[in-house]
């Protein structure tokens, strides 16, 4: 059986610390290397922040569901919301040589996870699937 853990939080930034704490624990249980755990924490945090900022436009009364699944190959994180549909083609980080606030979150997510994709079958809202393979399991 694959190990699954589910966390549902209100879409308020004050609950993001709970997502970070659980991400660290799940990363350790998956045996992800210690030096990659902090990257994992930042990446999942950024993905949930993006839900609040873009899908929910700052509405703190909605819900974000984060599911973790440990497998022998690595850790899968699935983030669900019921907000505005994201257009994956328009999601890109800012040019790192361009000094301006914002636009870094996508870079932090993509540098950490081996797979970053929105589920096209989700009819309303968004389902972002993130996979981090254990070293040597790619």
């Amino acid at each position, binding site marked *: 059986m694959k190990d699954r853990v589910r966390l549902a939080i209100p879409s308020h930034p004050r609950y993001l610390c709970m997502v970070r704490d659980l991400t660290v624990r799940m990363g350790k249980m998956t045996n992800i290397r210690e030096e990659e755990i902090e990257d994992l924490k*930042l990446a999942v945090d950024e993905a949930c922040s993006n839900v609040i900022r873009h899908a929910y436009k700052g509405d703190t009364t909605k819900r974000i569901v984060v599911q973790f699944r440990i497998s022998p190959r690595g850790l899968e994180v699935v983030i669900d919301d019921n907000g505005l549909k994201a257009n994956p083609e328009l999601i890109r980080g800012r040019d790192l040589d361009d000094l301006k606030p914002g636009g870094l979150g996508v870079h932090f997510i993509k540098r950490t996870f081996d797979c970053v994709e929105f589920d096209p079958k989700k009819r309303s809202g968004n389902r972002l699937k993130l996979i981090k393979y254990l070293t040597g399991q790619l």
Partner: protein
Amino acid sequence: MKIELTSHSSHIVIVITGEIDMSSSPELRARLLELIHKKPPVLFVDFTSVSYIDSSGIATFVEGLKGMMPYGGRLKFVSIPPKIAEIFGFAKLDKVFEIHGSMDDALRP
């Protein structure tokens, strides 16, 4: 996150403790921009006790730096923990911000 203002050799030092994230960065932004409004020649930020920073925290400092640039102000970061320094490096901000190992280093002209 906790923000304290101290002084070192007559310069303002912003001492931050804890996590800078989407929840706490609005408070940091307000305090930082309030200070920058007074156009200090140099602002120091002590990162010794910062345990985490996300993109909203980094964006706050980028905004602060851009607010200081027009009048020639300098934003100096002191004692950044290695993991946070790595994040600044990845974002190519280690060449944009002035980063120093200690207050003594930061005070050298």
